[in-house]
């Protein structure tokens, strides 16, 4: 058993998957916490779905797939923030329309571009075990960038989330900080596409923070614990995917959900008697 575990973890593709998954889970904790606090999960979904359109357009124009995903995510994120400022129609409805229309459009365009063979399922549900050198570098670069910006602006982000107007009076540029935060979310979603897929990305962002909520007294505690829960989900998800021969992305999300359920129903499960 231990031998086979050693073998499992020393396999190249498993190692890549582990490094990519864990580094992503580390930034997904704090970033996902903001999505939960600011009720942006639908926003995240819309962004992720529109990324599929980005992939399709990238394939059609024969450009670097990672780069086209990142650019389209950033572009969509920017457009969505503009839309957010005009509350004439319910944002909820508008996001719903955009999320599903861009997903549908993405699938249609991918099907039309039949000169290229595309594994649609890999994009929808992720293909963590197929990531290569180049993918890993993309993930590491983007994740470090996100982590640096997040730590530089951490107090500002928390401040605008708690009360935007007080933050503005205290001299914070709320609109600019909002935009930076949204772009960080877009970047993270763009690189996590290969890991859990378009349909499951939001869950990787919001389930660990939701699970961590009951254990946290401050925003920082919630973010840090969400990162830990995310990492555990990645490792256990990978291991179980390997042993039960199931897709990795969904398996990671199932583990995260199980952890969430445990803390939801037994919030004191980790508390020792003094």
């Amino acid at each position, binding site marked *: 058993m231990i031998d086979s575990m050693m073998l499992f973890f020393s396999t190249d593709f498993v190692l890549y998957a582990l490094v990519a998954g864990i580094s992503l889970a580390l930034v997904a904790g704090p970033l996902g916490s903001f999505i939960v606090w600011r009720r942006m999960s639908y926003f995240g979904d819309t962004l992720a779905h529109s990324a599929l359109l980005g992939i399709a357009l990238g394939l059609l124009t024969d450009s670097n797939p990672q780069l086209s995903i990142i650019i389209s995510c950033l572009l969509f994120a920017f457009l969505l923030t503009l839309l957010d400022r005009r509350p004439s129609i319910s944002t909820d409805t508008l996001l719903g329309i955009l999320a599903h229309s861009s997903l549908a459009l993405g699938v249609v365009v991918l099907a039309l571009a039949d000169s290229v063979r595309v594994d649609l399922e890999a994009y929808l549900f992720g293909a963590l075990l197929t990531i290569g050198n180049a993918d890993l570098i993309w993930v590491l670069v983007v994740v470090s960038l996100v982590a640096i910006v997040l730590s530089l602006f951490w107090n500002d982000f928390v401040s605008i989330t708690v009360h935007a*107007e*007080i*933050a503005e*009076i*205290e001299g914070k540029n709320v609109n600019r900080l909002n935009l930076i935060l949204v772009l960080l979310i877009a970047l993270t979603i763009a690189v996590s596409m290969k890991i859990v897929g378009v349909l499951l990305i939001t869950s990787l962002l919001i389930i660990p923070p939701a699970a961590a909520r009951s254990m946290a007294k*401050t925003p*920082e*505690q*919630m973010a840090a614990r969400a990162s830990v829960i995310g990492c555990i989900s990645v490792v256990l998800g990978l291991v179980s995917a390997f042993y039960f021969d199931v897709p990795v992305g969904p398996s990671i999300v199932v583990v995260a959900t199980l952890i969430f359920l445990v803390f939801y129903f037994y919030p004191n499960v980790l508390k020792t008697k003094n």
Partner: protein
Amino acid sequence: MTISDTSSNPATNSSADTNAPAVLLAAKSINKDFAEKKILENISLTIEEGQIVTLIGPNGAGKTTLVRIALGLLKPDSGSIYHRPALRIGYMPQRVHVEPTLPLTVNRFLQLANRQDKALLSSTLQDLKIGHLEGQQLAAISGGELQRVLLARALLRKPELLILDEPAQGVDLAGQAELYQLISEISDKHRCGVLMISHDLHLVMSSTDEVICLNHHICCHGKPEHVTNDPAYLSLFGASASQNLAVYTHHHDHEHGIGGSVKEHSHD
């Protein structure tokens, strides 16, 4: 009580003879419409160092809109807002809703305003008597406690101007008088100007230099004693509101050194 009419400027503080009172904020001819409804019409006001200005008026009179324009959070349709250069404002909004998903202790909330100055934090907590709340969740404290915490957050910026939107809401009656007393002491101690919205003129009266009675336009303004006898005030709030005042005016104290036409009311 000494009454002097020598000073024409209510903001002139006896302790600051050398410094001319400086204008912190000036609004000039502010107009604002919402959905083609006139909310504010030709509003002008100034706030000087150490001066406490209270906005009163019925619900929907445009008080919060005026405050948001004064803060620069909202743009007026016409008119101008002047802030003294590099003016530090402490702002206490009417409502603070903390998402239940966001864990936040009182201490962490206050650190959002000022992370470095730990001494200021502890002295502010002490001044406002909220030291015991530090470790508690912001969502779990009472309405009155929350108001004090919000005031503390505003003070941690070392404000030159405090802008308070109904600071006493959700506070019980005894607590309200205490809170207004506190605000007046803060204004004295730090010589900061205060612009606040209040419904309870009888409670703020003793600590207010200028009252502005607002109902889309400025109905009347001046010293509280003057405003409460103004027909425009009486027609908005009724004579009974004015009756209440007589009960409270002997709380009046002159520690604030308000020079000028403070009328003495009959005591028993």
